[in-house]
């Protein structure tokens, strides 16, 4: 009966109560949304590479190597010579090795030179392989396979010509070596979607008429001549390596890190990812703190609402007292009320989150290449909701205690 009365009392103040609940709901939705984006981003980062045991590059920071080789963020400061690459490839522990050559771009997208082994060995999201949506993998030297986002953004179809620019954000185009789109990959939710993939030889071919970053004047070798050339790379940016047995990973890593001919770095993608998390940890914590503060603000708003309602509700409390309710009942009535508001707010917040996810999922994917999964609420999220309700109850203790003292002083005679 008391619960029913509390509910009726809330209904009688529907507008203010509704606003308060809305504020709580929005803050809860925001908090959970930030959580979703955060865990979604983490999961999508973690999903970007799987099945690769080691990434090898010139010696730099392990996070840096991970970022430029896998996520195409930042640039390599140094390369891995072709001799070293072949040397490592020949080691008995190595099951497979895929070279990656970065440094050129097409519009806002990066161009990556690699071998056909890349399509076989590169795995994402728990072992999924790349698949061609349209067309074929590279066959000719000037064939390019483009990621789904490249195709969508630039509106490319199979067979379209493509011009590769030298360097990043460079105005000097390799317009003398026209490439052709041979295939478009299926969407993966990884940086591959935003990459133009050509063969390693093609990267060399682009640079036939170039010397130390500048075009040799008056020289323009015809494409057919280039096709006949040897085109052996002098260096690659990085290499993805799979070992024959998991047990050999650390041994090979040590050997590469101690490679005598040139300073190299071999990283385990998972370990480097952990390091990356540590770096972004502070930002993450700040994000959680801010969205947490929003929830607290909403709860304080609720507290203020209860406070301001106390005076007009003195009579109501006096009636309860006159009917024999102990002051404790008044206190619990207000706490119950706040708990109800917080609970309804939390539930609506959860509903808003899912509604928001349905709307935002394709938008976030298009804008950031981040696919937010719509899963049933996790245990952690449920705990957040429980926490909000509990915090609501605790916060309401402040006005409730005031009401308690007021009802003690008023008794059943209210002077208004």
């Amino acid at each position: 009966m008391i619960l029913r009365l509390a509910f009726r009392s809330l209904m009688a103040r529907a507008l203010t109560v509704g606003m308060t609940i809305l504020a709580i709901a929005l803050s809860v939705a925001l908090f959970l949304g930030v959580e979703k984006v955060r865990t979604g981003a983490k999961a999508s980062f973690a999903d970007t590479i799987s099945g690769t045991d080691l990434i090898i590059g010139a010696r730099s920071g392990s996070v840096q190597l991970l970022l430029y080789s896998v996520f195409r963020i930042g640039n390599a400061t140094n390369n891995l010579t072709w001799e070293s690459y072949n040397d490592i490839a020949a080691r008995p522990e190595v099951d497979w090795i895929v070279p990656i050559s970065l440094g050129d771009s097409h519009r806002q997208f990066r161009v990556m030179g690699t071998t056909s082994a890349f399509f076989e060995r590169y795995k994402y999201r728990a072992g999924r392989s790349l698949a061609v949506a349209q067309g074929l993998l590279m066959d000719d030297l000037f064939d390019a396979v483009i990621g789904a986002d490249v195709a969508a953004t630039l509106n490319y179809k199979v067979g379209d010509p493509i011009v590769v620019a030298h360097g990043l954000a460079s105005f000097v185009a390799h317009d003398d070596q026209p490439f052709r789109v041979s295939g478009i990959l299926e969407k993966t939710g990884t940086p591959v979607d935003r990459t133009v993939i050509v063969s390693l030889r093609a990267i060399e071919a682009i640079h036939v008429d170039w010397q130390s970053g500048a075009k040799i004047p008056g020289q323009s070798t015809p494409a057919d001549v280039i096709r006949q050339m040897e085109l052996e790379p002098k260096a690659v940016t990085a290499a993805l390596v799979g070992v024959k047995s998991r047990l050999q990973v650390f041994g090979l890593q040590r050997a590469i890190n101690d490679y005598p001919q040139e300073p190299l770095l071999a990283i385990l993608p998972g370990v480097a990812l952990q390091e990356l998390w540590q770096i972004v940890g502070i930002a993450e914590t700040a994000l959680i703190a801010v969205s947490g503060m929003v929830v607290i603000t909403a709860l304080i708003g609720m507290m203020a609402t209860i406070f301001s309602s106390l005076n007009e509700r003195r009579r109501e409390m006096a009636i309860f007292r006159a009917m024999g309710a102990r002051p404790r009942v008044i206190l619990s009535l207000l706490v119950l009320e706040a708990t109800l508001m917080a609970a309804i707010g939390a539930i609506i917040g959860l509903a808003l989150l899912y509604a928001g996810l349905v709307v935002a999922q394709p938008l976030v994917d298009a804008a950031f290449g981040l696919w937010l999964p719509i899963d049933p609420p996790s245990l952690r999220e449920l705990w957040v909701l429980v926490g909000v309700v509990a915090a609501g109850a605790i916060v309401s203790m402040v006005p409730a205690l005031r009401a308690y003292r007021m009802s003690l002083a008023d008794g059943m005679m209210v002077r208004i």
Partner: protein
Amino acid sequence: MDSDTSILSLRDVRYRWPGRASFALDIADFAIAPSETVLLLGESGSGKSTLLSLICGTITAQAGSVTVGGTDLASLSAGKRDRFRAEQIGLIFQQFNLLPYASVRDNILLPLRFAPQRRARVAAPQEEAHRLCTTLGLPEEAIAAQAGTLSVGQQQRVAAARALIGAPPLIIADEPTSALDAATQATFLELLFAQARANRSTLLMVSHDARLAAHFDRVVQMSDVTSPLQGAA
């Protein structure tokens, strides 16, 4: 009158509101016999409501004893006193008696929620609430209505039904008819009296309207029970 045989008795009671030097209530002896109906007359500010609060135990006297049904209120803890009030006393105020958002039924049943013994006396609370409504002349559909939607006269009847349910030994009414017109006043009092008599409840009503005197067994003037103002001393 002896406190053993009276339902209500006040002895040498002194009360002063905290922080208010100008007013003091001082009652040497005031008692009511069981089943008696008493009208307490007094002008505004004479301390009638204060006296009722003392009897209900929501405030406690600084001196003297207030005994209800043979129990000295001072001997009870605060919690027990609240429970005791729910069990022993049915209350009607001048106005704003009801929780406006709650149904008439919930309003009537509210005191039973805090008074297990009184609740036990009512075999079927829902039916009893309904019966009281009908007897007090409320329309059939009123029982399910929101209390705030009723007219003032109807609300007072609901308050009366709430005071009567479970037949508490003492019914206290603080100017219950002052918001009603003369005709409604008379029927309201008749119905209230009939029910109180049927329950053999004692009725103590406070008013500043001397015209109500004819309905009661006894009329007491506030000035007769209180000592002259000593507050200034």
